[in-house]
């Protein structure tokens, strides 16, 4: 299938869904469903980023949006990879909390940079059997626009973001490499990673400042 027919398929699916009414449920992620999910989530996120509310309020809202839109548990476990089973149950639990906090703080520390951000859907394509890849173009004032792909999977019957890809670079793969390197270089122990994550969160919180 070439790109143009994929694009027309992406455009046709929502229309067909509207015409035919309820389609039988499928295990694989439907492109139209994935892109409208990304569009709705993105609109919510952009509105929060651009609002004039205090940082703490915006961070809380962003946290709520991310918890709902991202498969935090799945992504977190994917990134810890083979070290998940090395970690004690207490470490696993703390890792998950720190991972979620890192995700939120990474965004909230950049609220200033994201003032005036807009986004639009680009082409959309089915990438694997189960996941859909939704392309978006992110635009910030006076900066060159850039393209991001959102990998959307079905988790517990709901569409959820499972990865973000910039120019062929998957965020979860890169982060798995990063975390694994920290653990490997500390004698295969998970605790030093958790220490580093705590420090990073503190640094991000300090940057967020006010």
């Amino acid at each position, binding site marked *: 299938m070439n*790109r143009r027919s994929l694009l027309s398929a992406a455009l046709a699916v929502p229309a067909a869904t509207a015409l035919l009414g309820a389609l039988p449920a499928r295990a694989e992620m439907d492109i139209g469903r994935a892109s409208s999910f990304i569009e709705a989530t993105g609109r919510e996120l952009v509105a929060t980023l651009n609002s004039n509310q205090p940082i703490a309020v915006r961070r809380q809202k962003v946290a709520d949006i991310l918890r709902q839109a991202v498969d935090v548990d799945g992504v977190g476990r994917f990134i810890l*990879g*083979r070290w998940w089973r090395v970690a004690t149950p207490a470490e696993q639990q703390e890792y998950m909390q720190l991972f979620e906090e890192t995700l939120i703080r*990474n965004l909230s520390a950049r609220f200033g940079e994201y003032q005036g951000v807009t986004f639009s859907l*680009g*082409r959309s394509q089915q990438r694997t059997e189960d996941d859909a890849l939704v*392309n978006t*173009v992110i635009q910030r004032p006076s900066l*060159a*626009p*850039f*393209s991001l792909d959102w990998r959307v999977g079905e988790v517990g019957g709901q569409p959820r973001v499972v990865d973000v890809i*910039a*120019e*062929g*670079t*998957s965020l979860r*793969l*890169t*982060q798995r*490499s*990063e*975390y*694994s*390197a*920290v653990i490997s*270089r500390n004698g295969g122990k998970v605790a030093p*990673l958790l220490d*580093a*994550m705590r420090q*990073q969160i503190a*640094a*991000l919180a300090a940057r967020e400042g006010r």
Partner: protein
Amino acid sequence: MSLSRRPLFSLALAGLLALSACATRPPASEPEALAEYEFNNDPLEPMNRGLYVVHNGIDTVLLRPAAEFYRFLVPQPVRGGVRNALGNLRSPVIFLNDVLQGDPERAATTLARFLMNSTFGVAGLFDVAKAAGLPGHSEDFGQTLAVWGLGEGPYLFIPVIGPSNPRDLTGFGMGIAADPLTWIIADGDSTAEALGWTRTGLTAADTRESLIEAIDSVNQTSLDPYATLRSAYRQRRAHEIRNGGDNAAPSDALGTGLGAGGSSYAPR
């Protein structure tokens, strides 16, 4: 001078000391560790990490400040023009690689862009071809060798250049050798030589300038920037080799290192 030389010297020494070390291959009894070792493709990791430290030293005292200075000195529309012109000068090498990869359509695009931008685009300063619906792409000998089936070899981190591997490094050399400008400059007078150095200097300044935010962000947010850069470079190269849909700008056609396809976060 002596102030900046001494840390560089000790950094170089640290790098050389690391040269002797090799990463230990995990035993077959640890299949997951072994899989990760092979996935990372970095058997020379201790040496590479030493060279990465050397690179960071050079970057801190020289490359990043030079890039900041370039950004401060040259206003934006002019920097964009410089980037376009540098990309246009890469056209012959990009064209050659389009052909060598058996892609006449992309070769024709590169040729048409070169003709349009060199004339109507005032020596390449304006990307009129892009405005006319012919966006550029990057292509280099490292990618061509990959398309021909050559493996990348072990991951390498080269100071100043950045992430690489034997295949991409070979391709980088081939790119210089195959560039008509290299030979025109070599045969020319002192003016040609000066222009050649200007081009090299501008390429370095433009590349590093375009990466200021990206590299700052990696250094600020990654718990292990070395591992992050390794993963990102290898994924991006794999994506470039299969012409995965994003068009890296022609100015990013260095074929190796931090500048390979790195500066253009352009939409499709």
